[in-house]
């Protein structure tokens, strides 16, 4: 057991979070490629909040899912499925 440089519980949880990212990321890329081109990147990038702070109403509004098309129009992005990271997610997820 000591051959593992980190505790098993730590490794299991971290791997679980990575797996969640891969699963939902690949799912999102699939959806993006199918019908919602260019909106995924804006959705991910705009969804961050700081430690110990409380977001304002304006910043909260930007995170509403129905604003994704609006956000897409504000950013210059390509379809996630065409990007290296989009293809990597699809490749890494056995379920997509």
């Amino acid at each position, binding site marked *: 057991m000591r051959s593992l440089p980190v505790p098993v519980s730590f490794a299991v949880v971290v791997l679980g*979070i990575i797996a969640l990212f891969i699963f939902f990321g690949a799912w999102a890329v699939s959806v993006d490629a199918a019908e919602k081109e260019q909106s995924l990147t804006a959705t991910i990038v705009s969804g961050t909040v700081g430690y110990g702070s409380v977001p304002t109403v304006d910043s909260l509004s930007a995170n509403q899912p129905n604003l994704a098309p609006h956000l897409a129009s504000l*950013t210059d992005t390509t379809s996630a499925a065409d990007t290296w990271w989009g293809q990597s997610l699809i490749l890494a997820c056995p379920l997509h």
Partner: protein
Amino acid sequence: MALSATPTLSTIATRLPFGIHYSWVIVGILALVQIIGSSIGMAAGVVVTPLTTADGGFGWSVGTIGAALMVYYLVSAAFAPISGWLGDRYGARNMMIFGGALYGVSMLLLGIITQPWHFFVTFGVLLSLTQSISMVPLMAAVNLWFRRNLGLGVGILWGAGGVGTAIMALLISYLIGSLGWQGTFWSIGLVGGSIVLALSMFFRNRPSDIQIEPYGTRPDDPTEIIRPDAIEKLRIKVFNKHVRSTRAFWNLPLIHGLGCAGHGIILIYSVPIAVQEGISLVTAAAILSLISLFSVGSRFGTPIMAERFGGKRIMILALFVQGITVLALFWASDVWMFYVFGVLFGIGFGGEMSAYMVVNRQYFGEGPIATTYGFQMMGALMGHAIATGLAGLVIYVTGSYGPILALSMAFSFVGVLMILTLEPSHKMLIPDWENSLSPEARSTPAIGVASAGD
């Protein structure tokens, strides 16, 4: 001879009215710094509108601002352990002077930005470094000033941070409306930076700097020793090596990350969920005010309870409350339900974050803890960044808020499970770490030599 080294502060320390210990002056200084430092986090929420609207004079895209904010969080996370190490190595006072100057300069530069890359540099990098300094070495500094009742000192700092968040949110919003972009950040930078630099004149790294003992010291406690710089450096290195060998070193940042992931999702999405239920945006925004307001009490009380009843069980309680109260959002439909949620969630939310300094004392003793605390703050910031990104993905693919509420609960409850794997709070994990030091580098050299001889 040695007593005359810092005569001014030494005199002040012995002449404080009503026998007040200088540790409380230190707590007051650090609490003010936390209030000023909280303006950076609040600015992150306030700047979106002026930067994205043509009226604000910028008209940048939400994606650009979001990317800069993501840089801000990631840089803060990456720098947290480094700023902790710098605090251990060069002292919290030097970090306060550096942080105060950096705060002032960064805010002045933020006031004159014209291009997106200016915003990336000033906010995404410079102010994130300042934030790390405020959150890590200037929070951990209180550790050296309390031999007992550390929970009270830490509770005051966290409570001040909560009050500061509420004050600074209102202040920055008001200033932007009345002074505009440049006036706001120039006035905040000048006033805040000057206050921090002025406070640094009254701040000292440790009680021995003014020839007093930490608060709560008893006659049979070992006297603090002033050591040569090389020995202090060695002690930090050996202490951190021993800390890294424990499971708690790895699990505490992860637990903090899971806790922050759990409440980060709620802080972003509780208002949109209420709006979806037909509640007006302004009315729904009060949910966040209630969460902030009621978190102040638990921010203050949790470290005190952790010290009294053991950090492990109090952390479990706080994280469980944070997780279980999210259930209410699945059924909430009226305003009062959301407000009750805000009150209850605020209690758990405030308690989740504030016990770590006390837990560190219980597990690792009185060693130089800022680097370790920096890793825990790194976990917290990464938790926010990862969870919000993941929540964005989940909403994107499911088109519903329900799954992210479940995700928030899962983060909190997995955090509870992780806490259960920790050692009991009364068990110090590295009691013998000083045995790896030469006798003259130990806290109690006489005892160390005797033990070695035995």
